[in-house]
């Protein structure tokens, strides 16, 4: 380049001349020297060095995180999709990049959009680990008052916040859980697209879940045109929903803006998982209730009573009985009411079930849970699917003077955070109904009790992922409760023995499930099997088939070169 525009700062000159004319206001020689040294301390003499590594506090980033930061700053010039698999520290990568730009004075005004459950966690991490003075956005006036704001995307996209955000120039925009920006027609996508930004990081563990167009939409937010126009993208690169063509070229284009580190690359050492099955024998009263419900469900199905939906809800009743009497009570109560309103007389069968339920006094599973918690003596997270069971467990633990806190999806952001903190600092047990909902990091705890099991493998993995993740220093022990001779035992057999969910991390679970769930969600298939099968043998046989399907899909996903590059962005060959 012949020349480059130069801006000379001359604002100082008048001040200097005023000092001369008035002969006062001069600084001292000591202070003059300190100013020179301070300026020297703050300059960054090279384009490529990572200054941020010098200012981290109390932790050192992993090599793949540092490498990612370098590539985003150097090759991608600050606009990138960070698509590491869950648990590899995307937040840390984003923090490193942001800090580097801030040290160099290239970024001052920052907006970080996250799901509301993650606002406080992001704010805390940026402050503690990176000493970035981030604030959680709470009130509308805060938009111009603070330079670094963490906000919930759902709040920010609504007025009056929306207007404030869209009228600001952000030096850096970070969006966490960016897979929520996959659809161009959504308010979220359009909002993020409209924000004026210099650098931008989109964080997601699943850049492409169902459709190649999702990936296209994400890339378009960062760099419209990187993958061509929508039509030409479809013709050039899309063979099927998830099947790319001209892969080599597509891969090259995508990898210019996306970095994906995988667990299997060996970046992070994960501790071991121990799996213990805790068999529970039902008391005669509980057994009678369970058998009663099972007979009821089978009879209703065989006689073709009710539609499929009602029948499936009866399977839920069966699952609830395996969890606790209290969980079953509510569903039974609803059935009871329905009968009372619709028919002239209450079905004697339902009445019989209610009678059986009344007779259950002692609950074997709860007793076992309390005993096990006492035996473990360390922090435990107890998962259940049902609110009623959660309350029951909290009561039972309180009776034994065990400090336990609840956690569920419905809690407000603050309350969730407060519960997490209580669990970390004071309580021995957390009883949780929700494992999804991003951002529950419980690596300070290494015992999980699955009081009952979700029938959706994704949710099983999420539960374990809360604890068995980056930062966990101990081996993790997973206790699975299984009531003998019930559907619960079958499900555990499928998940544990057939699919091997608990012992190992199944990479790309989402993709695998996507393949076998093309007709029907796995949870639905399981319910259907439970309903349709005549006896335990048939259940086993059909579950076994399902398990084989899963294994096949697993194999296929692992061997499909077409998908390989998407899963492995770091190694182009």
């Amino acid at each position, binding site marked *: *380049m012949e020349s*480059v*525009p*130069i*801006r*000379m*700062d*001359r604002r*100082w*000159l008048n*001040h*200097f*001349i005023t*000092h*001369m004319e008035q002969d006062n206001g*001069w*600084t*001292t*020689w*000591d*202070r*003059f*020297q*300190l*100013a*020179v*040294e*301070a*300026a020297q*301390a*703050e*300059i*960054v*003499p*090279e*384009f*490529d060095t990572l200054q941020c590594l*010098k*200012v981290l*506090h109390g932790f050192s980033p992993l090599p793949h995180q540092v490498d990612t930061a370098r590539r985003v700053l150097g090759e991608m*010039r*600050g*606009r990138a999709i960070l698509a590491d698999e869950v648990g590899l520290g995307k937040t840390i990568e984003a923090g490193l990049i942001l800090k580097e730009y801030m*040290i*160099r*004075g*290239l970024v001052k005004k920052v907006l970080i959009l996250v799901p509301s459950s993650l606002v406080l966690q992001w704010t805390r991490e940026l402050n503690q680990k990176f*000493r970035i*003075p981030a604030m959680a956005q709470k009130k509308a006036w805060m938009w111009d008052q603070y330079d670094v704001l963490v906000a919930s995307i759902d709040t920010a996209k609504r007025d009056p916040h929306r207007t404030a955000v869209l009228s600001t*120039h952000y030096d850096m925009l970070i969006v966490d859980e960016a897979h929520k920006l996959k659809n161009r027609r959504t308010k979220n996508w359009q909002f993020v697209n*409209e924000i*004026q*930004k*210099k*650098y931008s990081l989109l964080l997601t563990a699943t850049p492409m879940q169902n459709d190649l167009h999702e990936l296209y939409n994400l890339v378009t937010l960062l760099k*419209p*045109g*990187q993958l*061509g*126009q929508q039509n030409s993208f479809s013709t050039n690169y899309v063979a099927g929903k998830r099947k790319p063509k001209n892969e080599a070229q597509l891969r090259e284009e995508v990898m210019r803006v996306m970095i994906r580190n995988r667990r299997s690359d060996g970046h992070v050492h994960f501790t071991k998982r121990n799996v213990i099955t805790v068999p529970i024998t039902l008391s005669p009263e509980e057994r009678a209730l369970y058998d009663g419900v099972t007979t009821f469900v089978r009879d209703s199905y065989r006689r073709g009573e009710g539609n499929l939906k009602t029948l499936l809800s009866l399977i839920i009743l069966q699952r609830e009985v395996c969890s606790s009497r209290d969980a079953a009570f509510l569903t039974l109560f609803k059935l009871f009411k329905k009968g009372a309103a619709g028919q002239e007389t209450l079905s004697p069968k339902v009445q019989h079930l209610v009678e059986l339920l009344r007779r259950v006094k002692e609950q074997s599973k709860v007793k076992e849970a309390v005993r096990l918690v006492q035996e473990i003596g360390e922090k435990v997270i107890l998962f259940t699917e049902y609110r009623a069971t959660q309350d029951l467990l909290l009561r039972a633990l309180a009776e034994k003077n065990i400090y336990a806190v609840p956690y569920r999806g419905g809690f407000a952001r603050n309350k969730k955070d407060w519960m997490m903190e209580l669990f970390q600092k004071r309580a021995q047990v957390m009883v949780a109904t929700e494992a999804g909902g991003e951002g529950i990091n419980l690596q300070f705890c290494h015992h999980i009790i699955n009081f009952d099991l979700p029938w959706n493998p994704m949710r099983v993995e999420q539960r374990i992922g809360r604890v068995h993740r980056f930062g966990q220093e101990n081996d993790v022990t997973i206790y699975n409760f299984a009531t003998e001779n019930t559907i619960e035992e079958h499900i555990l057999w499928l998940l544990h023995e057939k699919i091997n969910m608990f012992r190992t991390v199944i990479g790309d679970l989402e993709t695998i499930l996507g393949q076998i769930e093309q007709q029907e969600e796995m949870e639905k298939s399981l319910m259907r099997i439970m309903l349709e099968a005549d006896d335990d043998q048939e259940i086993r046989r059909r579950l076994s088939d399902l398990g084989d399907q899963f294994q096949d899909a697993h194999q296929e996903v692992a061997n499909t070169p077409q998908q390989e590059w998407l899963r492995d962005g770091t190694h182009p060959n």
Partner: protein
Amino acid sequence: MELIQIKEFAERYLTAYGCHILEKNPDFLQARLSVEADKDLVHRPFYWMYVEKMGLEPNPTILTFVFEPDKAPEGARAEHLAYGTPRFSQMLRSAQKNGRFIRLYEEPRTQFRSAGNSHGYEPWLAVNYKISSICDRKKDEILHLGIHLRTGDIREQFYEELLNRRWTPKLPAHRHTVSHAFTIPEAVGELEYFLQGYIEHQDLSWADSAMERLEQELEQIHSFYPEEWRMSDELHAEKKQRIREAVWQYHPRVEVEVVNAGLFYMNP
């Protein structure tokens, strides 16, 4: 900055800004701040407004610094002072804010002291410039220039020459200053001309590649959006915004700022 430099800088800062050092040992440093330092290092504007409005006796903060986090003295509330901590950043900012302009006379050498007639000084304007090369990335450099106000001679590394001499803020007895041939704005004009030449002779390949990158991005944007007449108003606005963002991100430029400047009267 290394640990030892941080420690030394902090101590010199506290002294230069009139703070009272209460205790110091190899591991930590405790000081009662001066009002001036308190205002710069401890963020409490409302307190100062209140004290000043009410005419109260101010009660400056006592700060205890440790330089390695695990060496905090027991019982005392000490904070870790290191590069990148908010407090140290404030210290650096305060130092730069308050050390900007100076006028000094070199202490006379002994042979001048007894002499009967007055001796003249050589007048120099010293300016410490920070030169930042900016595109989507950035690097800085500090240039310590000095210009002789009678001859127009320009020297690099001038600050180093200043460090080797002894200075006083008051014009010593039997000494006088001579009139300058260059006014300050004229001298600054000379320095800026020099800087321009200096910058243009640097390796500017970074600016070339940034420009190239910008052009690629703009090309990509132009080919992504349909022809002008086909675009809705929204799409048109989106395209314009995207172009603005690309320019904002990449356009190469050099920004020159003044760290501080001073008039230095040197012995001939």
